[in-house]
């Protein structure tokens, strides 16, 4: 029983981590809390849904959702954030601007779906269950866990082993100095926002599949959980996001199972509140990480 609970926790934790990866990438590199990430995530789910309904195979739907939401994310950067970089108080301004962008995306999705909860047609992903040692897990759940591991690895490889990643980290450290050394910040912004959006897109499709629901407000609970993860893991720390995501999933499942019903949310946000007070830099936030948080 407890093993099953832990496993469920790890699976929902992977889902949270999947959402938080792109969110933390932007907050680490550009010191922006991009609340529109929730809207991009939701858009990814919608693109995936409509592709599947039109009869495209699932893998193609996922790829199109990633490309679509990646481009959308970059578009949001151009529209919402580019103008603000000249201003001094980018933190506040970017937060407001991304809330605005998020509202626009939610409004469009609401009109498009007529405020309905859409769900993927039955059998979009084969419903196979595996049983071993008394534990039950579906193929989709296994795929999500595996995917988080792969994407996490790829993201780390990209950031720390490639020339692009070095450029991203250079801009994160000091944009002006990076520019003087011949890094084109525009291409860095394109890369980070595209990758962040693509991650949000695949997260949207998979979460839409997992819970069999795609609707215009689906981003909000993940955004709120995303804040918890990003703060607990350290603002901008990618390993932190994965660890904090898994931790959050396990704690949430255990709390739902063993605490009085309804107290889970109160517990999670109290954890966030206390975490902020005791250790605002989070579990992994420190000088050692190149893609670190912008704190003064």
């Amino acid at each position: 029983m407890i093993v099953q609970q832990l496993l469920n926790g790890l699976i929902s934790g992977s889902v949270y981590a999947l959402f938080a990866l792109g969110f933390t990438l932007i907050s680490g590199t550009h010191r922006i809390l991009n609340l529109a990430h929730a809207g991009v995530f939701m858009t990814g789910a919608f693109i995936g849904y409509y592709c599947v309904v039109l009869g495209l195979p699932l893998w193609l739907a996922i790829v199109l959702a990633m490309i679509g939401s990646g481009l959308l994310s970059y578009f949001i950067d151009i529209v919402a954030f580019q103008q603000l970089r000249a201003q001094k108080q980018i933190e506040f301004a970017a937060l407001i601007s991304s809330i605005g962008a998020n509202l626009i995306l939610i409004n469009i999705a609401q009109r498009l779906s007529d405020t309905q909860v859409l769900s993927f047609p039955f059998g979009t992903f084969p419903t196979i269950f595996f049983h071993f040692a008394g534990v039950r897990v579906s193929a989709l759940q296994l795929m999500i866990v595996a995917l988080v591991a792969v994407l996490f690895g790829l993201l780390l490889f990209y950031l720390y082993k490639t020339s692009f990643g070095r450029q991203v980290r250079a801009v994160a450290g000091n944009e002006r100095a990076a520019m003087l050394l011949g890094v084109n910040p525009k291409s860095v912004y394109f890369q980070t926002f595209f990758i962040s959006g693509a991650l949000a897109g695949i997260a949207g499709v998979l979460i839409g599949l997992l819970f069999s629901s795609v609707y215009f407000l689906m981003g909000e609970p993940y955004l709120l959980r995303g804040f918890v993860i990003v703060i607990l893991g350290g603002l901008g720390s990618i390993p932190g996001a994965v660890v904090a995501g898994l931790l959050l999933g396990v704690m949430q499942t255990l709390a739902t199972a063993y605490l009085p019903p309804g107290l889970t949310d109160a517990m999670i946000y109290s954890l966030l509140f206390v975490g902020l007070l005791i250790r605002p830099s989070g579990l992994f936030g420190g000088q050692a990480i190149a893609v670190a948080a912008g704190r003064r």
Partner: protein
Amino acid sequence: MGIFEVYHPLFNFFLLNVGYAFSQQIVLRAGVFSVATGGFAALGAYCTAILVVDYQVGEFLALAASLALGMLTGLILSWPLARLRGVYQAIATLAFVQIVTALLLYAEDITGGAIGINHIPRLATTWQLLIAVAIVTYIIFSIGRSGIGRAFDAIRQDETVAGMLGVSIRRYHILAFVISGAIGGLFGGFHALLVYSIEPALFGFEFLAMVLTFIVLGGKGSVWGPIIGTAIIVSLPEIARPLAENRQMAQGILMMVMIAYLPNGVYDSLVSLIRQRRAAKWDRANQEKSHAVAGA
């Protein structure tokens, strides 16, 4: 009289939101990035509703209790939060709002859970609300003109300089939280007495975005900013039907455009423009005078 009858509920709604806007403005003015207004309002609304419905307490006493509760919560909240800055403060106050909402959902026996409290007698009149808004406007106005307002402005513009000049940042941050809490609690109480039924979802993310928009739109420097910002947002759906259907989109676009091109809000930007013009005119007049003197 006929026209006033039609727009009477809208006018009440406007007055209510002016109150919330002031609660949000006072913290932003002091350089505190708090979004706790929704939490204060929720506490105030439930406090008044429970006192009036379950304990048959008089409306004024109930409103006073809401005000005191908001004030107390602001005080308690300010003690840990005065240590945090910027985005961290915003996330911590967001966590506070979520904790309040989660507890309201949890304590079903007292608060009615997700259904909320219904059949609240409609005891507040427009006149009472108008008087409350007038008093709060006057208080905010006098705070703005006093040493407290100057201290707030100094802290917002440059905390280090303000500290060097002997302004106790901690004390003024606490003061801002307490005032914000008191106003938020009071108008939360009015909210409960105006709308017959309240539920936790009223004070969620949408509320937060709306109240922030009032200030971003109007400006945080004077009492007119919040009033004008609220008037614009509240009247938007009434101006044209497409605007009512796409209210969130209109709000989102306004937020993005304002923060990018007029970050000080409509009113504050207008005032500084007029001042610049006047100063330029005065300069020119002086120059001409000195030329005339030199010529003679």
